[in-house]
């Protein structure tokens, strides 16, 4: 793969589209959640205004250098995840920087953001941030396990660590999707996905009633704006990852939107109706059911 200036332009275009999609998706998902509560909910464009508002705040205070770096880390985590995957399969423009070992890098970027956040949140000095970060790290660690098992199972199945190739292998009708061909790996990953999306019952990181609101407690104004940008990009990037790995990727934007929306809805579907696990319960949960499924997936693939 050749690197050129053109690719940066394409990457920026991807980020721009994903950002907008992410913001609108965020608005619509919140509206759907509100509907279950029998209300109308926010306007669909509210996330845009919120971001503009946060950037329009006049004052910012600092807790130290890491405090500034954390949101940047977080955002780079999201963008990194996005940019090392093919967004639209077969499109030159939206294949981004996908390369032979991108699956491994992508898994790393999953973790990258929360680590950066950990540094910044610790710097902010707020106890809730500290607790939130420790909760976040333990939860991420625990759901990474089934997730990685699932990914390994898929990699073993397709004998590749390149996402583009994995997607390519799934083309030709939904029967070729990993979710059909390798249901155990898919199940392990989809359960881990719930944890990755941070919705209840696995929203121990933000946990408004316990440690309002965890790591970002102290972040405000533009810094919060950066986090909000990430909050738009990161979930979509994760969705695209899961779409690519399990649901055959997307060959055009429409397909991407439909698929990612439904994958997102999976976490919403569960998230709306369940209360939150305690951290230890959530860790325990990830280390039991999905882990076992993941191991089964590996075993099935191996033999």
């Amino acid at each position, binding site marked *: 793969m050749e690197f050129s200036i053109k690719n940066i332009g394409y990457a920026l275009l991807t980020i721009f589209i994903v950002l907008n999609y992410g913001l609108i998706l965020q608005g619509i998902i919140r509206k759907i959640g*509100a509907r279950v*509560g*029998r*209300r*109308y*909910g*926010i*306007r669909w464009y*509210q996330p845009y*205004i*919120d971001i*503009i*508002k*946060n950037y*329009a*705040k*006049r*004052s*910012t*205070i600092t807790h130290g250098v890491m405090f500034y770096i954390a949101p940047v880390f977080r955002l780079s985590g999201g963008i990194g995840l996005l940019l090392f995957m093919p967004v639209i399969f077969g499109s030159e423009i939206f294949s981004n920087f996908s390369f032979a070992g991108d699956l491994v890098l992508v898994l790393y970027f999953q973790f990258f953001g929360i680590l950066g956040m950990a540094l910044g949140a610790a710097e902010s000095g707020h106890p809730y941030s500290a607790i939130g970060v420790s909760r976040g790290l333990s939860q991420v660690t625990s759901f990474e396990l089934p997730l990685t098992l699932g990914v390994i199972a898929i990699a073993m199945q397709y004998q590749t660590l390149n996402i583009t190739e994995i997607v390519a292998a799934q083309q030709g009708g939904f029967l070729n999707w990993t979710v059909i061909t390798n249901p155990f790996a898919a199940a392990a990953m989809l359960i881990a996905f719930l944890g990755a999306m941070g919705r209840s019952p696995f929203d121990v990181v933000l946990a*408004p009633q316990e440690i*309002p*609101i965890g790591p*970002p*407690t*102290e*972040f*405000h*104004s533009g810094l*919060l704006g950066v986090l909000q940008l990430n909050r738009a990009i990161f979930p979509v990037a994760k969705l695209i990852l899961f779409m690519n790995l399990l649901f055959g990727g997307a060959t055009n934007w429409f397909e991407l939107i439909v698929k990612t929306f439904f994958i997102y809805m999976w976490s919403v579907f569960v998230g709306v109706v369940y209360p939150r696990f305690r951290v230890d319960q959530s860790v325990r949960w990830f280390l039991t059911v999905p882990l076992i499924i993941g191991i089964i997936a590996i075993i099935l693939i191996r033999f």
Partner: protein
Amino acid sequence: MKEDFKKRTVISPDGKPIEIDPVKDYFSDAKPKVYKPAHPVIEKFANWARANSLWVLGFGTGCGAIEMRPLMTPRFDAYRYGIQWRPTPRQSSVFVISGYLSVKTLKRVVRTYEQMQNPKFVIALGSCTINGGMYWDSYNTINRLDHYLPVDVYVAGCMPRPESLLTGFEELKKIIKEGRGEGANKYAENFDWYKANQKKIIKDWDMPDYNW
């Protein structure tokens, strides 16, 4: 002053004694700044965004807090008007003082208000914030909120209904859009006056004059 806030020597993890003055060391005490509005066109756009994204701090200071829940829930659903609740002062832009303030709460309210970022707005609910309300002769509740914090909008009632409160938010939006929501700057400009009023009634003042 509470024991926790007194100057003391602690042994650091590496075994060295360090002298700490919690009030000075744990807080910043720089005075608040007056922030000049940006170029009118930008400011107008910014104000539009500020008005349409009112993040209310979820701090129920008095009775009126009970009418917040209907606002957040289906019946009145304030979210559709761009009003959302935030649990942390750092991220909030609107502080709803829901009724009477005891001196003990006022202390927290002042701190919380100061932690919010400019521009910030205050909506005062009910009789109590205007002239003491039914606790006008109580030894523990303040009579006039505007002596301690700059107030943008008052909503009459005891307690004001959610509908009134929504009207109050609409009024606040109007004020912000007109560029008059400068409570934070007003606070910074008259900082000494506000501080003197606050200190007059908050007897155990164990915090720096300004907590950011």
